[in-house]
């Protein structure tokens, strides 16, 4: 596979161990992995590198740092359509932490619980990026 077709995934998470294991797995599956340690670094890297997909932890230094970072990303035109998967060790149903998947103020694409099932993550990533690839070539008559 030529270098051009390698998709770029940005991983934003403050736990270096988590980033390391997930990165290696994704790189093994032929993705280029970019890393960021917190929301603001994630934003900077995303604006510069325009990744094809972003994995973002929801709670880093602050309780809702991930969410605010997603909002900021959506305000950036180049990132408005980038698929963002939110990762969290806390589950959707936990009291005090409810995320409605299609919240209008939080335009993320997937909510994934940690620890992450790597195979399932891989399939979701491929499905999302595959779909985008197909959209680049509009179907006839569309």
């Amino acid at each position, binding site marked *: 596979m030529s270098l051009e077709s390698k998709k770029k995934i940005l991983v934003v998470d403050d*736990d270096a*161990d*988590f980033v390391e294991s*997930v990165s290696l797995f994704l790189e093994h599956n032929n993705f280029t992995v970019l890393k960021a340690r917190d929301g603001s670094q994630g934003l900077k890297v995303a604006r510069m590198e325009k990744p094809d997909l972003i994995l973002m932890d929801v709670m880093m230094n602050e*309780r809702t740092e991930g969410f605010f970072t997603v909002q900021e990303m959506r305000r950036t035109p180049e990132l408005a359509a980038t698929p963002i998967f939110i990762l969290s*060790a806390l589950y959707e149903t*936990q009291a*005090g932490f409810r995320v409605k998947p299609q919240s209008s103020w939080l335009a993320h694409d997937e909510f994934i619980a940690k620890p992450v099932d*790597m*195979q399932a993550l891989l399939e979701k990533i491929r499905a999302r990026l595959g779909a985008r690839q197909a959209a680049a070539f509009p179907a006839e008559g569309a």
Partner: protein
Amino acid sequence: MSEAAGTVVVIDDDYAMRLSCRKILEKTGFHVETFEDGIQGLEAIARLKPPLVVVDLKMPGMSGMEVIPRVRDIDPLIVVVVITGYATIDTAVEAMQNGAYDFLPKPFSPDELRLIVKRAMERHRLALESRQAEVERELMRRRFVTFVSHQLQTPLVAIHQYLDVLKQLDDSPEVQARRQEWFDRCLKRTEELQGIIKDWLTLSQLEGELARERVRVDLHQIVGDILATYEQMARAEGLTLENRLKENTCVVRGDRNCLSVLFDNLIVNAIKYNRPGGRVTVEGRAGNGEVFVSVQDTGIGIPEKYQAMIFDEFFRVKGEGAKTTTGTGLGLSICRRIAREVGGAVTVESQENVGSTFVVRLPAFREETAEARAAGGGL
């Protein structure tokens, strides 16, 4: 609750009584609304939510006794005072059992009315504060539980992911190259988890009112014991530990275990955040009924913007690589809590790349009188 904190609702079928209450209380600065029967009164109470209601027990139609529980239904914090025509204890007691705060037998003087109203208002204010405090406490508890849960999950998730990838990509050269390092990381994160649990238990025990001893404790000995246990670890890092405390100088009254935990946490930090060849020095002085013990290191220091926050639960200054952030984030909050319990405090002075000095101030040991012993206090 009504913004008019000085509003009193008076319910009495007797016009003269309503007028008299209004005159007396308006003179004291209260805003007064009067009603001649329970129904009208309750309607107003529901609307105004006043802090205080004065109601006559004997009225045609709805009696004062029937009004009381309905007021409590509207808001249990509204204080009710009943005016009784029959100064019989039974009626008054029944009213109090139904929720009235106090009773005023007729005839009463203006001063008697004012005094009861003053006490009732104070009672209301305290009840409000206590309810607010409870709400805050509940919010904090929930936030804390979420926080703790996240703190415990984080190392577990890291370990899980490493193991999962090790398993799935067992034969890949990149993983083979990293195997040993990853095993070490898993072990480190396990220790981190154990540390969090241990600190969490310590905090819980401090929260609880487990019987703690209140004996004479010479900090020279406590510190000496702690430094001895870390002698080997320090030597491995090339660090020098020094106990400059003199015997019988820094003596306090307290629980030996708690004081050990306090200084253990400070000394461990001083060792952990130090540099090779550095020093950890403990010294102290006493004066003015107080004892000051400082734990000084020659380490990386704490940036000024974080110095106020380091005693907060779970706060940790993130190192340049997150891997260097060890510890549970609870140690210093435990220190602060132990010190505060005896009326002391822990403060810090620090300069980046020079070092930090943590100073523990504690009340000095004093022989106790029998009364002080009975009253309890200190740890």
